[in-house]
Structure formats: C-alpha cells, structure tokens
C-alpha cells in the first residue's frame, strides 16, 4: 500500500463535510486523545500489561482510522494483535515507527 501521503484525502474530505467549522476541534481532540493513548502504550509496555497495551492500541487504531490516517491505523492494528497475543516483547522495535507515523498524520491534519 504505502502511499506517499499519510492521510486518505477521500476520508478527510468527507470529514470536513461532516464537521464543517468544527474540523479544527476534531483535529484538536484527536491530538489530545492520541497523546494520551501514546502515553498509555508506553506505560503499559513498562508495566508489562498486555491488556492495557491492547486497549490503548485499539483505541488509537480506531481514531486513526476515522481520520483517514491509514498507515498509522495499520501499525496500531499490529500493536493490538501483540497485546491480544501477549507478545509485548515484540512491541519496542515498532514504537519508534509508531511515533513518526503519528507525527506525520498530525502535521498533515494541521496543514488542512
């Protein structure tokens, strides 16, 4: 898949229609919520809690999907599976990628 743009503009287009003036509010909400989720993921990893890890990944996956951040969403799906299958050891290598994909998505959203 791997497109150049971190966002699916079709989805974003629809969102702008739906949210209208409140699109910025949506982006702000996404940013603040995602920040929390990312922190939750880190904490869960430190605590060795696969269930908490799964939940955080699931949630981030959901909102990423809703905002058209496809590649971010796919990575979250992987992380969610890791949580379900209790393979937390497999997580750390992916965390850096997670953060960068998130940054890209956030930047793209703010640019709109």
């Amino acid at each position: 898949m791997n497109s150049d743009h971190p966002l699916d503009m079709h989805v974003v287009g629809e969102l702008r229609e739906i949210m209208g003036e409140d699109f910025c509010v949506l982006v702000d909400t996404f940013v603040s919520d995602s920040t929390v989720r990312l922190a939750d993921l880190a904490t869960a990893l430190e605590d060795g809690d696969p269930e908490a890890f799964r939940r955080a990944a699931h949630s981030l996956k959901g909102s990423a999907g809703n905002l058209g951040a496809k590649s971010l969403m796919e990575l979250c799906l992987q992380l969610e599976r890791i949580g379900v299958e209790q393979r937390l050891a497999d997580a750390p290598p992916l965390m850096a990628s997670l953060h960068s994909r998130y940054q890209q998505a956030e930047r793209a959203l703010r640019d709109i």
Partner: protein
Amino acid sequence: MNQLKRPRILVVDDNPTDRLILLSMLRQLDYQVFEAENGLQGVALFRQEKPDLVLVDVVMPELDGYGVAREIKQIAGDSFVPVIFITSLQQDEEFARCIDAGGDDFLVKPYNRILLRAKLDAYSRQIQMHRTIQAQLEQIRENNNHLLHEQEVAKRIFDKIVKPGSLNLSNIRYRLSPLAIFNGDVALVATSPSQNILMLLGDFTGHGLAAAIGALPLTQIFYGMVGKGFSLEEILKELNTRLHEVLPVGVFCCLGAVELDIERNILHVWNGGLPTGVLYRHDIGEFLPLVSRHLALGILPANRFVAKVESYPVQPGDKVFFWTDGLLEAANATGEMYGEERVMQGLQNAASPAQLFDALNNGVDRYLDGVVPEDDISLIELTVVDRAELAQISRPFAQQAAQGPVAWSLNYNLLPDSLRNFNPLPLCLHILMEVPALRSYGGQLYTVMAELYSNALDHGVLQLSSSLKSTIDGFSQYYSERAKRLAELSSGFITLHFAYTGNDHGGKLSIEVTDSGPGFNFKKVFTNEVPSQGKYSGRGLLLLKQICSRLEYIGNGNQVRIEFDWST
C-alpha cells in the same frame, strides 16, 4: 412516513475522536444526541434521558458494550430500544457475540455515513411500529377492563330485576350457574292466583349482554301475567310477540314451559327449541318425552306463532324435567359430549324418584371429571304436588288499607270474538280484589270463576263433552277439539253477572254465569252425590261446593249461580 420525529440517540464511546465524529454525523442527520464517555455514565444517562436508540462502543474499560447493552435492555423493559454496537473488530465471531449479547445490530468503524443513515432510518420505522402496536395493546387491555366492569354492573342490575321468583318452592329443584343469565339461561317459577304453578326454562342464543338482554322482557312479562292469572298459552303468545319485536333477526329464545294445574291434576306443556324434556310418571315408572314441537320464541311474528300447549293428566309424585343443550353438549377431556343417551341412562338407573334430579346433576359432573364445560348447564325439575304439600304460597296482590266498594253489581257480556281471543278472568278478579275484604280469598274466587267460565265455554258454548277427558288419550283429543271449535266459533255468548253487598263484619258475593248453550239436565245429574262422569271431570263441581255457600243451576242448566260469604 411512519418515522419518529427527531429521534433521540445516545452515543456511548470512550474515544473522544470517534464520539465527536459520530455526534456530528448524527446531528447532520437531524437527530437529537446525548453522549457518554464510558459505560457507567452511559447507563445513567439512559435512565435519565430515555433516548429512542443507543449506539455503544464494544471495547470500553470497566463496563464494556455488552454490559451496557444488558443493563439498558433491562431498564427499557417492554419498550423497544434498539442497541447498536460500534466495533472495529474484524472477526466474524465477534459480530455474532454482539447479537448474542442482546444487541440489535452493529456498526463498523470507520463510520460510513450512508450505512449509518440507512440503519437508523430502518430502526426508526421499527420503533414507531412497535409503539403503535403497544398503544393498541394498551387500548385493548383498557377496553377489556372497561367491558368487564360494565358486565359486573349489568349483572348486579339483572340480579335485581330477573328475580328467581318462586324458584325456591319446595317442589322445584334446579341447577343454574351464577352467570346463567349472561350465558342466556333463565329459569322462572311463579304461582298464579288460582294456585297453578308456572315454570319456564329459557335459553337465549349467544352469550354476554346480548343474550342477557332478552331476559328482561321475558321476566317482566312472565311474572306480570302469571300474577294476573293468565294461562300459559296467553303468556307464551305475549312473550313471543315481545321478543320478536325486541330481538334482532337470528337471536331467539329456546323455551320449555309448563303450567301445573294442581286442582285438576293437569300439566300443560310447551317446548319450542329446547332439547326433549321428560315427564316421569311415578306410578308406572315411565319417562314420557316432551318433544320440541315449536320454533323458539322470537322467530315468528305474532300472527304465525302457535302457542298450543300439550296437556297431560298427572298425579302427585310425577316429575317434569327440562334442560338446556349445555347438558347434552358438555364435553369431557377427550372432547366427547355427554349426549342424550347418557342422560336417559342416568335417569333410568336412578335408585328412586327422589334421586332423579341428582342422577342428572351429578351424573354430568362425574362425567366431566373436573373439565369446565364451555356452555352453562341448566336444568330444572318440578314435582307434582297436591295443594296441601305446597310449603310456600305466594300472595298475588299487595294488601291495601283503602275502603272498597260495599254495594255494587257488574254485568259482563262476552261475544264470540272475545271468547276466542280474550280471557276475562284476570280483569274480573282484579275488580273483585278492589274489595279489601275479598283479597284474602283471591285464590278461591279465581278458582270458582275459572270453573264456572270454563264449563260455560267448553260445555255450553263449544258443546264439548267432558266424558272425553276420562281417558289419557282422550285428553289431548279433547283439547284439540276445543281449539278447533273455538277457532271456528261464530255465534254464542257468555254473560257474567257479579253482585256484592257487605260491611266490616261480613259480606256476600254472588256470581251468575249464563251461556248460550243448550244446558243440561242438572236435576238428573245431581241425584248422585258422587259425580259420575269420571275422575278428571267431576272434581270441578266438588270444588265449587266446597268453596261456595250456595250453588244452583237455573233454567235449562245453561245458567249457574253461586254465592260466596265471608264474615269475621
């Protein structure tokens, strides 16, 4: 369109982004929205706002979507509140789990606007339909309660009007359910001024108020006319006329009726539409069928109705039975009806005449063995008694303290048309009862008048011979012939002459009856002390001699005069 107006939707999702997007979508679709950020809040908000539909995320901390769904469904109770799960889970078995958890549907993230709208529209329609049906059910329940209440009130009114009369006479036994009238069954017994007992058992078609309504005119006419001394035939004619007027086409009253003439030991019977009744002759132990020979009351117009009764000689100890078809059609657990054969067998096998009623009554209950019959079982037994055995005699007229006429006379001339269609005796009795002193002798006076009048009519004007009445077969022949001659009567008359004088201490009433007949050789007949014309016909004369202080035949014998005295 059958849609809810501005449906109210509750969104329960712990993800703020998702929630925001969904709420915006819903507002755009013109829904009124409420939001909760976790399961517990969601349940509390549901209780508070009672939205029409709930969208709930499956994966939430503490109380997850399934838990929320369960609680909400419980709170909603009978109301239909669709709960739609929001899930990003991909596996099929997760979808199945959603439905198993009591949810109605699921929505997949990321949200698809078109799908969302379609689902919500569909659920809107369902909710509306459900509410319409609930409202109708409520209405039906209310109507039903209303009807039941009305029936209770009606029943209380009916109980006051449709009094049992003399059902508690000691020679009557009966079975009637407390709701008999509402099942169309009526049993009435009353005693006439001349101490005849009249009894009827009626079965109106249908159930409920429609069936019960007919009981009102039936009762009022019956008691009114019996009290005035009308004969069974006259009463039947009037009953049919009134019911024909009042009841709609298709509604009628099957009726079995008897008049027991205690003095003459004659039983007059009329059966229109009831199952065959029974006359039990206790001396020979035989059961004579009383077959329905007429259409039920209310079907034929007055000019086509046949009130003709059948007359049987009876003796004290004989019994008459009537029952409604509820008895024959009572079905046991296998659905087999009791039937006429079992009824007759029960009667034949009864150990004694006193147990005949129980044979009927208990027999069917044993057969039913606990099964509740669909139709009321009503039955009645009348035992022929002589006057001495009657434990209770009803007084036909109320006492009045007013002063009555003390010296008067009355002439009443009846011509063929009147003789054919009219019974003057109730009116005459009514006049006599205007004399307070005569009121306690009403029964006897009526008996005297009836005897004199019927002799004048039967033997004088119609010229029937009473020797025919000395045999059982001759009986019905006699009455047949009587009816024929009366119908063909074109000339003749009967004159009644009353004269009374009296005071506080005593009085004398004389009654003279003259008929247009040839008379008879009374001197010849009266040389014998005991009437020679057979058991059934001579009793009348004996009776007159017992009641009256004086009895004489005048002229050709077509004129008879009696005197009746009273004193303190």
